[in-house]
């Protein structure tokens, strides 16, 4: 087993300079000790068996979270619609606090608000030990935001660190409603590890739509963790578009804790070359009359590698659960790999749960049909692939963002 000496030294340096209170310090030390006791995940661990991170993390035994000089987000990257913005540049949060009617966005300095339980997840432990950046979004009751919040994660050419971690909170009080769009832009060409940990609390009757765009990453290893807790009548619509990502695990745990809450989780994996992307999703139906839907599509070219592990857990008290899960993959070369592990774990007897998973190539009959109408073989194939992925984008309930992602898809197919 590796001794992680360099990481230990870096952690010592970090906590000696990081200003915080004793409780937080204690939690970080405990998290770090937990990380050290297990080390980086290994493929023998069922939870990490297919994860691309298992191989990649070995590169980071020297991880160093030093900050680079202040850079700014280039204006060209800013969205041109009216929005509130949260900007990370090179892992550092640049934020002027926002305090608008019913909306608070501020730096998340009170890291103690987080779950203090020492976790099992080794990378989450690492995140809990080191995370020193993050935002807090809070909507007060009955606040319906018409302007979306855009979170920019920008890694500039000047980024020099090998590690950055953030820890964020989104808290929606009763009957509040917001759209959060998070996009990550990579200009840096060094190898680095990014971990993010976002906790979401949806109070009664609140509604969060979260759309994530994560594309064109050539060098980094990414671990994104999202944990959402849904109370009665609340709704989470969560869409992730992952395109050409070097190595990433998107892990989510969604707890359906109140009656009539609904988690609608949709994802696209569009990968070329040697890209690796993993979705690990667990939806826990902890209360009766709860509903969830997972819809994941993957289009894989060259030697790309995609993983989908989705689980629906239904507690014994969660009668009348409605759970749905579908993953479909298009394998567009002989060298791609798609691992799918759909799981159902059900302890209640009056539930409706379905799951399906399939992988295959583009349907030749359909290609011929399109070609017989004068459409070239290449265009026909592209139409088929875009149509296949477009079905996931169709699930987005905000037209503005539906268009953004459709444009993204068109742009991708016209410029490859």
């Amino acid at each position: 087993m590796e001794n992680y000496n360099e990481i230990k030294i870096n952690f010592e340096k970090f906590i000696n300079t990081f200003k915080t209170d004793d409780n937080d310090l204690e939690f970080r030390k405990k998290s770090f000790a937990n990380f050290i006791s297990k080390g980086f995940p290994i493929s023998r661990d069922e939870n990490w068996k297919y994860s691309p991170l298992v191989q990649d993390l070995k590169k980071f035994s020297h991880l160093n979270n030093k900050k680079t000089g202040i850079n700014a987000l280039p204006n060209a990257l800013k969205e041109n619609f009216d929005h509130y913005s949260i900007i990370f540049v090179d892992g550092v949060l640049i934020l002027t606090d926002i305090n608008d009617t019913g909306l608070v966005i501020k730096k998340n300095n009170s890291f103690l608000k987080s779950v203090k339980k020492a976790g099992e997840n080794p990378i989450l432990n690492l995140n809990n030990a080191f995370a020193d950046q993050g935002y807090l979004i809070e909507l007060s009751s009955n606040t319906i935001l018409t302007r979306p919040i855009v979170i920019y994660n920008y890694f500039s050419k000047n980024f020099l660190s090998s590690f950055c971690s953030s820890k964020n909170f989104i808290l929606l009080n009763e009957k509040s409603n917001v759209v959060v769009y998070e996009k990550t832009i990579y200009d840096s060409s060094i190898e680095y590890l990014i971990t993010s940990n976002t906790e979401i609390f949806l109070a009664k009757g609140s509604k969060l739509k979260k759309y994530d765009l994560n594309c064109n990453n050539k060098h980094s290893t990414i671990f994104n963790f999202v944990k959402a807790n849904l109370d009665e009548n609340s709704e989470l619509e969560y869409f992730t578009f992952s395109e050409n990502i070097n190595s990433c695990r998107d892990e989510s745990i969604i707890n359906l804790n109140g009656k009539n809450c609904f988690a609608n989780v949709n994802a696209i994996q569009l990968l070329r070359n040697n890209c690796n992307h993993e979705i690990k999703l667990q939806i826990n139906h902890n209360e009766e009359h709860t509903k969830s839907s997972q819809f994941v599509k993957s289009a894989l070219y060259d030697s790309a590698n995609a993983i989908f592990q989705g689980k629906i857990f239904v507690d014994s008290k969660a009668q009348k659960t409605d759970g749905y899960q579908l993953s479909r993959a298009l394998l567009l070369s002989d060298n791609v790999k798609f691992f799918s592990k759909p799981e159902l774990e059900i302890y209640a007897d009056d539930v409706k749960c379905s799951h399906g998973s399939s992988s295959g190539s583009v349907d030749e009959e359909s290609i011929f049909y399109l070609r017989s109408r004068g459409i070239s073989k290449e265009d026909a194939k592209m139409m088929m692939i875009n149509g296949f992925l477009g079905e996931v984008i169709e699930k987005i309930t905000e037209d503005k963002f539906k268009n953004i992602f459709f444009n993204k898809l068109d742009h991708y197919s016209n410029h490859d």
Partner: protein
Amino acid sequence: MIDIKNLRASVDDKEILKGLNLKIGKGEVHAIMGPNGSGKSTLSYVLSGKEGYNVEGEIKFNKKNLLELNAEERAREGIFLAFQYPIEIPGVFTNNFLRTSLNSVRKANGKAELNAIDFLKIVKEKAKELNIGEEMLSRPLNVGFSGGEKKRNEILQMSLLEPSFVVMDETDSGLDIDALKIVSNGVNSLRDPERSFLIITHYQRLLNYIKPDFVHVLSDGKIVKTGDWKLALDLEDEGYGQFIN
């Protein structure tokens, strides 16, 4: 217009077309009738350029060697196959598909591509004639369409692309009387001295609505009899038995 000589086609060493000869002149409507397994659908696929067949012989289309062209090139040259079973393609919207198709053909023929507005104007007009609602055009291609809607959609594509040679593969199958009339009217309105048709069918029924100039009987991969439209009536009475060895 089209001249087929000694056409042979096989799949995995199984010969399906066994030396077929057929000549279709400009503006003519030919019907091919024949029992199951006689090679009717294979003929339609070989004419439209589907891959997966070993093809020998010659097909001359407006003096071009058709067998040297792939499926999309044939479509751009003016060949159109109305499918027996139009394919459902989820996620590809009918409007979008129609425009891409029309513009591909226009572009190949040196015509300007149509923008979305001009295209919609044309497609709406043509769709109306075929009793196709605008709602249908905004749905994914053929997904959830009834049998009749699918066939009308085929005729809509035909009327948009304005081909010079149309192969209709059992277009009447799965149609009720009303749909059959709509489809036949659509086809008849496209009859033109510059446009030829090859209508493949099991039954004489369709030929009551679209009257052919010639009727051929296909059996065991060859044309075994040719006549005028009365031949279809005889076949309806007597069946194909006489042509099967």
